[in-house]
């Protein structure tokens, strides 16, 4: 799916073309699927209480380690490609987070079963939010110690202090630590702009962010200019806030143009990176300085070896299913391998909601889709089941009826699996399409025959590789059913974004291969950028609001919702906004992806619902 990070769209095309046949992502999930769906498989306990689809129930993701899980052993993790950055300050890719979740300790973290809110990890408890949501105070746990360094050397013998967390965040502004989300989620932290200006003058030294203070060695305080505490607390679950001692890292960070701290990093999680061969393998070993029980991670395995280069993911899936001690990393079982897994190895397959959606975006700024009734007509006619079949059918994901996917707060409030109810939403309530309803909307749009007449040529720019190209072909046929003459232009995935769909001036009438995946479980992370009018004006050449929706009511609602600090109210508000977006029919939502994970028969995998990938700290061997 498309990234939240604007930078990714610019600098990642080559990477995405390989890694994500589907759509881009920031903190993106794996390639051909990015999931969504209910956060509760049969064994999961979703706090969002979303409904469980039949497929999720049939192949449930285990989210708790089995009682008496075996300790020890080596797990081999098969990967197609490398992590995006080994440096936790720059990591912005869900499979990388799988490594980070095992070796790092951000202030907050996500136990596998939790999807509603992050839990304290390095923090000793939930943060104190004061000053109307504008001050956040964390206490960090005492006596947390660093691992031996990657690549050898003396390491760092002092325990973690709050200043290490402050430095870890500040170094994210260095040009040599190209963090993709700091300026987005920390925008309301006081002094951020001044720090950005300072680092331009001295790109070798991490600048001071005055709004982050450390009154003592165990306390870190965030001072915000606006009451956006919830969003920031969620963002503090990302690897950036994992401690990095300045005394150790400053020398590596002063290297230009790229910091070398990642290759010499010291970790505080239950594991540490003992060997990293770029593009070949990553080896995790137990952190000898980690105190068992100091956080929620049980860490059963002795060693994890992530082997890269399995570009033929179908045979990699077969290898995992028929072999021993293996799980998948950055790819999912898809197509034939998914069917094989589902029929022959059902106990080794799990489906999880991945927190993403896919939709066909209309350009709402120019005819014919500047007319809301025309858009509703196309949505009413759309056979979303047929669209979903292009990605593998029901095993690939849930049928989308709105934009916030299952597992994200706001999903139920937006109507859950069934979607928004009421006659004003009738156009989205027919999974296989309703041509007569569509024709009625076409008539309202001014087409007296119920079909397009006159100038009915529309342009559609799509990816040129399956399954996205298949989706585009099916979409084309569905548009044609209402009389549209679709000029379909298949191009490379990266070109589709960087030359057409994300360039406001060049956007075609329809972009059929777009979608979004969350950074963390919050409504803001799901629908703010893709539907806020400010996105269009803010990034005219790297726009992620593909429908170019710029509705003042929705903009106002989005700009207010991010400052709601009460979780229930926040979920309700984002659910409401989701329905408001659906009512304007800017796109055809058609799938909430599942992540399909596979494991060898002697592995007891635990899937973390935060990123729908195997949690290395909870997984064990049987």
């Amino acid at each position, binding site marked *: 799916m498309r990234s939240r990070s604007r930078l990714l769209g610019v600098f990642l095309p080559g990477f995405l073309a390989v890694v994500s046949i589907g759509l881009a992502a920031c903190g993106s999930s794996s390639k051909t699927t990015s999931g969504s769906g209910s956060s509760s498989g049969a064994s999961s306990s979703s706090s969002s209480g979303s409904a469980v689809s039949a497929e999720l129930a049939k192949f449930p993701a285990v989210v708790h380690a089995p009682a008496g899980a075996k300790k020890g052993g080596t797990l081999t993790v*098969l990967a197609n490609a*490398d992590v995006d950055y080994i440096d936790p300050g720059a990591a912005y890719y869900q499979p990388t987070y799988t490594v980070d979740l095992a070796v790092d300790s951000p202030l907050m973290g996500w136990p596998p079963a939790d999807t509603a809110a992050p839990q304290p990890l390095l923090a000793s408890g939930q943060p104190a939010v004061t000053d109307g949501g504008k001050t956040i105070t964390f206490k960090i746990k005492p006596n947390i110690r660093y691992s031996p360094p990657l690549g050898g050397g003396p390491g760092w013998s002092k325990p973690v202090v709050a200043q290490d967390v402050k430095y870890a965040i500040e170094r994210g502004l260095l040009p*040599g630590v190209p963090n993709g989300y700091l300026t987005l989620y920390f925008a309301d932290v006081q002094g951020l702009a001044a720090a950005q200006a300072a680092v331009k003058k001295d790109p070798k030294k991490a600048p001071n962010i005055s709004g982050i203070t450390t009154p003592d060695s165990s306390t870190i305080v965030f001072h915000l200019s606006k009451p956006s505490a919830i969003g920031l607390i969620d963002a503090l679950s990302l690897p950036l806030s994992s401690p990095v001692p300045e005394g150790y890292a400053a020398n590596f960070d002063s290297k230009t143009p790229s910091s*070398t701290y990642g290759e010499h990093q010291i970790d505080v999680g239950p594991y540490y990176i003992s060997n990293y061969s*770029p593009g070949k393998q990553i080896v995790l070993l137990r952190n000898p300085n980690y105190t068992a029980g100091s956080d929620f991670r049980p860490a059963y395995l002795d060693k994890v070896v992530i*082997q890269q280069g399995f570009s033929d993911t179908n045979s990699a899936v077969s290898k995992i299913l028929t072999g021993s001690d293996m799980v998948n990393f950055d790819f999912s079982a898809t197509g034939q391998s998914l069917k094989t897994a589902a029929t022959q190895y059902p106990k080794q397959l799990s489906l999880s909601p991945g927190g993403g959606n896919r939709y066909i975006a209309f350009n709402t700024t120019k005819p014919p889709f500047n007319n809301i009734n025309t858009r509703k007509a196309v949505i009413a006619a759309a056979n979303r089941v047929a669209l979903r079949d292009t990605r593998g059918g029901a095993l690939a994901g849930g049928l989308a009826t709105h934009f916030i996917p299952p597992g994200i707060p706001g999903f139920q409030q937006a109507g859950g699996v069934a979607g928004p109810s009421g006659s004003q939403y009738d156009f989205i309530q027919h999974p296989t399409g309703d041509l007569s309803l569509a024709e009625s909307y076409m008539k309202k749009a001014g087409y007296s025959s119920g079909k397009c007449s006159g100038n009915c040529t529309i342009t559609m720019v799509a990816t040129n590789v399956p399954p996205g190209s298949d989706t585009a072909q099916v979409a084309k046929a569905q548009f044609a059913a209402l009389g549209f003459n679709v000029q379909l232009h298949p191009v490379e995935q990266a070109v589709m974004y960087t030359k057409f769909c994300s360039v406001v001036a060049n956007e075609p009438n329809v972009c059929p291969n777009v979608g979004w995946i969350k950074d963390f479980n919050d409504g803001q992370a799901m629908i703010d950028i893709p539907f806020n009018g400010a996105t269009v004006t803010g990034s005219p050449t790297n726009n992620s609001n593909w429908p170019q929706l710029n509705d003042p009511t929705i903009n106002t609602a989005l700009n207010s919702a991010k400052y709601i600090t009460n979780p229930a109210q926040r979920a309700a508000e984002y659910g409401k906004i989701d329905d408001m977006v659906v009512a304007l029919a800017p796109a055809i939502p058609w799938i909430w992806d599942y992540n399909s994970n596979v494991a060898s028969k002697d592995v007891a995998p635990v899937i973390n619902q935060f990123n729908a990938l195997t949690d290395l700290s909870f997984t064990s061997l049987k």
Partner: protein
Amino acid sequence: MGRYIIRRILWGIAMLFIVSAVVFFIFYVLPSADPAVLRAGRNAGPQQIAQIRHSLGLDKPIWQQYLIYVRQVFLHFDFGYSYQYNVPVRQLIFSRLPATIWLTVGAVIIWLALGLTVGIISAVRRRSIVDRASMTTSLAFISAPVFWLGLVSLYLFADDIGQFPIFPGQGSFASASTVFQKAGAMILPWCVLAAATSAVYARYMRASMIDTMGEDYIRTARAKGLPERTVIRRHAVRSAITPIVTLLGLDVGILLAGNAILTETVFNIPGVGRLLYNAINVSDLTTIQGITLFGAFFIVFFNLIVDIGYAYLDPRVRYT
């Protein structure tokens, strides 16, 4: 002989300079986009790109850029820095070279043993059923793409995903720790890589042998009453194998230069070829550029070895 070797070495160095100029032109001058952006990796910001531009000397005139580039490559053996992996390209290549050497050495042994034997037998038994069968088979192997052969062999014989599991399959080399495990994991890749090449060598050897067998000195040897086996082994093969030496030198250089890209990718062997494949996929231009130059070095080096070996085998060469 000494002058000949010096001349060849100087020519090899000149060739490397020419290659470096071509590589420089392709990677620095031709790209329509900013070379610094192309090298910068994924999330790089404007400031980091500016630093890369400066570190590459892209803010200097072209001729100065070339001098900097040549100085780095030839004096410091520095092929640049991969911002994709955040390590020097030289380090990346050297970390991958052992796997490629494993693959190359094994495949060379197989294709020489197979190709030369078949070529000699075909030449000696010209137009026999054995000759026709072996030449038809070799044509089939030459025509079969390596990636196809690789995938078919995995489908048939890999121990985990194969229909007739015999040999370790995809990714096994990466997880092998002992020499025996590594050799076991290499059997399929060796056979696949050797299949097409041994077919080529068989046809070359056959043609060369047929030419040689028609020479006067072979007739003389036979007239002297030497046994046919001796005629073939001592006189015909020794002479006919000379062009094969040239071919072998180039092939080894090319393979070490990363041209086993398809075999390494299909079998997930972490060698230079797969590094090149990954670099192409993620547009890691510095790594592609480094491997290209590194490959040129290998090819020139092995060419030099071949030239010297040739001169040793055939004195006439030294005076030409």
